[in-house]
């Protein structure tokens, strides 16, 4: 087990390394840099420009810059933000926390809804409820995430029951921790709901399909023939047998949620990685972009690693192979 996880973690590190190199190369290939706009300003003298370039390290060659960045990453700074003039990490950590604040509850809620619902729907296969369900998930799948976020904003606006964007109310700071927490939850409700709606359909469909296959198998028929109660058949026999592809999907769903989350954060002005990344890309704030993308990659790898651990715990056949 330890060795299996160690190997997986080592793979993760390799991926991170590859992603960082790729990011540097891509940035190099993209036209312009942080100072491109300043260059157009005739009031800044060429000497000042050269000084600034040297200060930001933009005059160095790519391998040197990568090496500098790698050294600062080991120190935990992940480079310097040009725009904010602080280490990128100090900007990223609070934003990452905010993004996790949205995506972790959304992940948990969507799986908590999708698994029981998917199992039940698989049990109804061929009946009218199943058809309604298929139509519903198709519609959900077809709905663009931006639209979901905008709809959520519309609801907030029309009902007035939810805040329109943001993470905290203006005066929440001085009302004690309980009020603060309630305020936070109130602000989280809509973005989390939008995320759940955005990712639910895919998971639901997978649960239903993989359950559907298992329900046709001879061991399920045998178990039914032994007189096991229906609830037990569905949840204690079919679900563990169908869990394998679903657990792999769990890792993937982390990726889906993250990318949807970036978008929803921007639309609903949630101070997560999404708006920061967008801003940094527009400003060509090199290290901030790299840091944000690397952070997303870390989340992704962590999600897949979690999936691997679950797979190991759930399937005795995989335990044997490793």
């Amino acid at each position: 087990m330890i060795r299996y996880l160690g190997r997986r973690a080592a793979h993760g590190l390799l991926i991170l390394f590859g992603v960082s190199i790729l990011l540097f190369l891509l940035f190099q290939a993209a036209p312009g840099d942080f100072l491109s706009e300043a260059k157009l300003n005739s009031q800044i003298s060429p000497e000042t420009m050269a000084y600034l370039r040297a200060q930001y390290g933009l005059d160095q060659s790519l391998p040197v810059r990568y090496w500098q960045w790698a050294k600062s990453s080991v120190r935990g700074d992940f480079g310097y933000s040009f725009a904010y003039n602080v280490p990128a990490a100090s900007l990223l950590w609070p934003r990452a926390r905010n993004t996790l604040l949205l995506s972790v509850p959304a992940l948990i809620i969507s799986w908590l809804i999708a698994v029981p619902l998917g199992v039940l729907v698989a049990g109804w296969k061929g009946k009218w409820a199943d058809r309604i369900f298929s139509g519903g998930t198709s519609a959900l799948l077809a709905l663009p995430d931006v639209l979901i976020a905008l709809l959520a904003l519309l609801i907030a606006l029309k009902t007035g029951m939810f805040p329109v964007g943001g993470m905290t109310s203006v005066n929440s700071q001085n009302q004690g921790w309980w009020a603060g927490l309630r305020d936070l939850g109130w602000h989280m409700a809509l973005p989390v709901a939008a995320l759940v709606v955005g990712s639910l359909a895919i998971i639901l469909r997978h649960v239903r399909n993989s359950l559907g296959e298992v329900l046709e198998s001879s061991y399920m028929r045998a178990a039914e023939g032994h007189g096991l109660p229906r609830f037990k058949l569905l949840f204690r026999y079919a679900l563990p047998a169908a869990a394998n592809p679903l657990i792999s999907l769990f890792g993937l769903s982390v990726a889906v949620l993250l990318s949807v989350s970036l978008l929803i954060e921007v639309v609903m002005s949630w101070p997560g990685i999404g708006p920061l990344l967008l801003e940094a890309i527009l400003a060509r704030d090199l290290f901030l972009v790299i840091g944000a993308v690397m952070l997303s990659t870390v989340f992704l790898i962590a999600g897949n690693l979690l999936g691997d651990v679950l797979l190991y715990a759930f399937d005795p056949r995989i335990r044997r192979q490793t």
Partner: protein
Amino acid sequence: MTSGDLGLSKPEPLLRASALSVDYDAAGGDVVRALRNLDLEIADGESVGVLGESGSGKSSLALALLRLLPRNARVVSGRIEYRGRSLAEFSAEELRQMRGGEVALISQEPALALNPVLPLRRQLADVLLAHHKLDRGAVSSRCHEMLREVGFPDPERIMRAYPHELSGGQRQRVAIAQALICRPRLLIADEPLSALDAATQSEILELLQRLKRDLRLAMLFITHNAGTLAALADNIIVMREGEVAARGSIGKLQSSADEYVQGILFPEKSLAGEPRASGPAADETPLLEVRALSKKFVQQRMLSRRKFVVQSLVGIDLSLRRGSTVAMLGRSGSGKSTLARCLAGFETPDSGEILLQGKPEEAKKAGIRRPVQMIFQDAATSINPRFTARQVIAEPLEIAKWKTDAERTVRALALMEEVGLDPGWALRLAGEFSGGQRQRLALARTLVAEPDLLIMDEALSGLDMPVQAQMVRLLIHLQSRHGLTYLYISHDLNFISLFAQEVIVMEAGRIVERTTPARLAGSTNPATRELVEASERLHAPGVEAAV
């Protein structure tokens, strides 16, 4: 109704089906008739055998009796009564209580009847808990008792295991334990032996006989092998295309004049008039020579650095002459399949030589000819079910870019004809063919490569006896026509005397005996004796061709 219907004095039967008809809705709006007007009665403690080819509706009967038919099946007419009450009146909960509690089912394939991801403890205990309220200790001791009853000396080890950690025979015994743990009155056993090797088959058969006697269990035993029924069934129903073709005791059926009944009871008889295989051409370099072949597998357990070395083949010497048929016998796990896989090039041996026509390794030939071909046990899994018959056969040609598409089709159709398949079926999907037809398809596919040696790894074991007989006839015919050499691997002795000139018995990775079919019965080797005796037990009523 049976002839013994004497009205008032007769007690209520345990289970009665009258005029039962079942249809399946097949793809494309076709309706397949699985059962037609079937009448059946099982009294308390009585065993009824159901005999028939695959596709005769046997399995549908088993499922219909428990109302477990798949969604695309419909009971068109007739009624099923359990203790005088129609199953149609049973509520969902009553039906559940009946399944497993009163009427238990052993399904066809033991490998597939157990949930792969749950420990057997749970799978066994849950059946008990579904019908009785018991505390943990009582459940555990009842499970232990049941597992001992089906012949596990160490129940705790089995309870902790997962299905993939057991052999096929062990799994089947667990499935029997599951079925019997609630002490049902009736056991429906659907081909419980067909996937097991002969020695394991006779163990399970003995177990069922003992349980039937000790528990006064009524039984509906479904099989395609008449031999197993002689020992077990009081009454036999022979089924053909969903209808009852004949019924009665085994003695009565044996004297029946019906050709179909005779074909099922004595599949070997149908081969009587066939010319025997001509035998090998003399004094020539052997087609295949194997010298001191060894192969081992290394297994490693979880959380352990200890490695288990499984010596699969030890110093095998073997020589096959062109045009001969060699039968390789042995229990499952004796290394037969590993040897076959080494010969076919799927495994690389650790040491030793394989010489083909005196040369170490056939230099890669141009075109489509491959000198060694292999047919596997289960065509259902070795052929892509979504390919059409033409695609299955022509695929090797396509890979080799052999001639044009039209010429490939002509070749495929000719081969279909040669293996006895209607070329008009060329566009049917492989999955729509029956087991025997799929095996013919597999045979046609191997013939594309114009092989010299055909290795058949249990290629007939999964088929009904009459279908096996037809396949043997076809193989003998093809051998004389193309001068093929056969290596026929099997765990039972069916047809061997009609088919093979030489018999090799394997045990624990070694060849323990080389003999001829005629001398097999007189062998003193313990491994051979075990196979011969198991075979005799299974084919008691004269279904005896092997020895």
